[in-house]
C-alpha cells in the first residue's frame, strides 16, 4: 500500500488518501474543524461555510476542498476564528434562535460550535423573521424558526430514505425549507420518524416529539465538554 501523503493542519501533520477532503482527513486523524452542514455519511455540501480554513493562503471550506500534499492549513488562527465567529453570528441573526426556549439546547450543534469558537454575542442586527411551526406530524415538530438551511434533511430524505420529502425553495435571503406534500405540511408527507431525515438535523428545526428535557441540564451532550471532543449531534444520536 502506498504511503499516505500528509498536509499540515495548524502545524500538525495529517495523513490523507487521494481524493479525501481536508475535513475527512482531519476528522479521521482526530482533529476537529468546526462544521454544521457537513455529515460524513453525505456528499460534501459546503453551504454553511463554518468550516472555512486558510489553505496555502486561500480561504476554502474544509469539507469540500481536496487535501493536497504539503498543504499548509490554518484552522485555529485568530483570523480564521474571527471569520468563523462572524459566519456563526450571521446564522444566529438570520433565524430565531431562542436557546432558553428550545428543547434542543445543550445538544444543539449550532450552539456547540458557537461555544467552541468563543462566540459571546450575535453582534449583527437581528432579522427577527416571522416563520411558522409545523406541528402536523404525530412524531416530529418542524420549527422553521431554527432552520439554518444546511440541507442535511434534504440530502438524507433524497439520498438515504429515497423520499425527497424536503427541498429548499426561493432564493437569497428568502431561501426556505419546504416539504413535499399536497398541503406543504409535514403530516401530509411521506415522512416517518424512522427516516434518516428525522435524525440528522443539527439544530432544533426537526425535533422528535416526547423527548424534550429528558436529559437534565448539566448532563446534556455539550454541557461539560466541547463539541471538539464530544463530536457531532448526529453521531451521538446514533451511538
Amino acid at each position: 500500500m502506498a504511503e499516505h501523503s500528509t498536509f499540515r493542519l495548524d502545524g500538525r501533520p495529517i495523513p490523507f488518501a487521494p481524493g479525501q477532503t481536508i475535513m475527512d482527513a482531519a476528522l479521521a486523524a482526530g482533529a476537529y474543524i468546526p462544521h454544521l452542514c457537513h455529515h460524513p455519511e453525505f456528499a460534501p455540501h459546503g453551504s454553511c461555510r463554518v468550516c472555512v480554513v486558510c489553505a496555502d493562503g486561500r480561504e476554502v471550506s474544509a469539507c469540500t476542498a481536496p487535501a493536497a500534499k504539503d498543504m499548509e492549513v490554518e484552522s485555529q488562527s485568530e483570523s480564521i476564528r474571527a471569520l468563523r465567529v462572524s459566519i456563526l453570528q450571521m446564522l444566529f441573526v438570520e433565524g430565531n434562535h431562542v436557546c432558553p426556549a428550545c428543547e434542543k439546547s445543550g445538544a444543539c450543534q449550532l450552539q456547540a460550535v458557537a461555544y467552541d469558537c468563543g462566540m459571546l454575542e450575535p453582534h449583527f442586527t437581528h432579522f427577527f423573521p416571522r416563520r411558522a411551526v409545523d406541528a402536523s406530524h404525530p412524531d416530529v415538530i418542524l420549527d422553521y424558526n431554527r432552520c439554518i438551511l444546511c440541507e442535511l434533511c434534504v440530502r438524507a430524505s433524497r439520498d438515504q430514505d429515497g423520499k425527497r420529502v424536503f427541498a429548499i425553495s426561493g432564493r437569497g435571503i428568502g431561501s426556505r425549507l419546504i416539504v413535499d406534500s399536497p398541503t406543504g405540511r409535514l403530516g401530509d408527507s411521506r415522512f416517518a420518524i424512522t427516516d434518516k431525515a428525522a435524525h440528522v438535523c443539527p439544530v432544533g428545526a426537526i425535533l422528535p416529539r416526547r423527548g424534550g428535557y429528558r436529559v437534565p441540564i448539566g448532563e446534556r451532550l455539550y454541557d461539560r465538554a466541547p463539541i471538539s471532543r464530544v463530536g457531532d449531534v448526529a453521531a451521538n444520536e446514533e451511538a
Partner: protein
Amino acid sequence: MLNPSPSRIAAAVERSLARLGRDPSLVLQHLIALQQTFSFVPPAGIDRLVAALGVTRAQILAAIDFYAFLHLAPRGDYDILFSDNITDRMLGNGRLMTQLCQLLGMSPGSTRADGLVSVGLTSCTGMCDQAPAMLVNGLALTRLDDARIRRIAALVDTRVPLPHWPQAFFAVSNNVHRPGLLLSDLEPRDAGLAALRQQGPDAVLAEIERAGLRGRGGAGFTTALKWRFCREAAHPEKVVVCNADEGEPGTFKDRVLLTSYADLVFEGMTLCAGIIGAREGFLYLRGEYRYLLEHLEAVLQRRREQGLLGQGMADTGTDFDIRIHLGAGAYICGEESALIESLEGKRGVTRKRPPFPVTEGYLERPTVVNNVETFLAAARIAEHGGYWFRSEGTDRSAGSKILSVSGDCERPGIYEYPFGTSIARVLGDCGAQRTQAVQVSGAAGATLGVDEFQRVLAFEDLPTAGSFMVFDDSRDLMEMVRNFADFFVHESCGFCTPCRVGGKLLRDLVEKVAARKASRHDLDEMRRIADVMRRASHCGLGHTAPNHVLNTLDKFPQIYASRLASADHTPAFDLDAALAEARALTGRDDVGAHIAADVGC
C-alpha cells in the same frame, strides 16, 4: 387571466410535453411555457407536470419561488417590468414607472384589481444603450419617454393585444460604434468549420491555443485548455454550452452578437463540439432576451438544413445539435455551474468545485461552458489562425474585447478594442465628459476614479466581461451603491451563509447611510461584513458582491462621510418609528409616545 379551465391547462401541458419532451431536466422549460400561456403557473399544471416528469411538487414550487419570472399567482394580462439598473435609474425609470402607474390607477409593485396589468421592477434587461427599458410579457421595449408611457397606458387600458402595439416600441438597435477585430467582419462563411474538416480537430485546437484566447465572461480561463480538459475527460458523452445569460448589469454585447452574428456563435459551438467530441449543445438564453428566440431558432434550423448541424454535421463524422434553453430571471445562472443546474431544471445554485464542469457538468457529463463572445472569437480564430488574433492585445490578454458602454456619455453602445486600451481612450471615444467614475465589469466589478483612467482593460489590470458604465460629476455615487447592494440581495442564490445573510446586512447598512442615520461605526461594520463575504462565500457572486462598497469606501469616502450622523453609535432601527404601531393602537400622541433623537445628557 384568472382561473383558466382545467381542460385548457391540460392542453397547454400536453402541448409543451409534446414539443419539448418528458425528461425531468425539462421541468423549468415547461414552467416557462405555462407562465407565458397563463401569466402564472396554475396548480393544475403543477399536478400534471409532477405526474408526467416524475419530479416532486416541492421541486417545482422551489423553482417557481427561485426564478423571478415564474409566479404562483396570476400576473396581469399585461405584465410590465421596468429595467432597474443604475443606468435606467439615471435616465428616470422611477419617474416613468410612477407616471405609468398613475395613468393606470395602480401602485408600483402590484397587479391592478381587475387583473389587467401588473407593474414592477426587474434587474438590468440588457438595454442600457437604449434605456430606460421595460419588458412587457417578456418582450423588450426600449427608449421609454413620457410620450411612450402615455401611449402604453392607453394600449393597456384599451386592451390592445401586444402584437398590435407599434412595432417601433420593440425596436432594438445594435449601436455598434467601434467595430474591431471581430465585429468588423460580419460575413458568416463557416470557414472555421471548413478548417475543422480540412485540418482536423487537433490543428484547430492548436490554433486556438496559439491565439491565447481566454474566456470572455470575465474570469479568463484559457479556452483551449478548457476544451482539452473536456476532450480528455473519461465520460464519452460531452456537452457544449453557450452562456447567453448576460445578466451583469450594464452589459449587452451578447444581445448584439446573437442578433447579428448568431451564425458565428453557433459555428464556434460546433467547432468546440467537433474538437471535444460532443453531440449535444445548449444555448442558455436569458429570459430577458426571449424576443431573440424565434430568430435564433430560425438560424439553427437553417444551419440544420445546410448540414452544419444535426446528423453528420459539417462532414466531420459527428452528430451535433443545439437546443435553446430559456432562463427565467436569475443573474446567478450566468455562473457556469448554476447555469448547468438550471439547464437540468433546478434552482440555479452554484455547485461546489471540484469537480469542474469540464469533467462533471450537465447530467454529470464533461461540459464546456463558454461565453457567447468566446465562441464567436473561436470561430474567427479557426478561420484566420492564432497569429491573426494575437496581433492585437497584450502578452497575457490576446485579441480584442467587446465593451457595452452606457451611462453618462454621448454615444452609448458597443465598442470593440484591443486588450490594453485605457479607460481614458474609451471615455474619449464614447463622448463622456466631466466623468467622475467608471464602473468596469458590472456591479461585481471595479469602481474607478479619475486618477485611474490611465489603467487598461486587460486580464492583468482590469479584467472585464464588457460592462462599462460611466458616471459624470452630476451623479451621486451613493445611488449607484444602493442600486448594486439591492441587486445583490435580489440575486444571491441563498446557498451559502456569507452571501445570503451578509448581503442583506450590507444592504441594510447602505440604506442606513443613505438615510443619514449611520455612524462611523457602521462603516467599520460594512467593511467587516464585506470581508466575510469576500473571504468565505461559496462562489464568485458572494466574493465580488461587496466590491462596490469597498471600492467606494476607499475611493469616494465623501459619499459616506457627508451623510454620517455625529454620534459614535446610532441605533440599528428608527426608534420613534418603532412606536408608530403602538401610537396607532392607543391613539396616543403625547410627548411620552415619542422617542427623540439621543442628544446626550
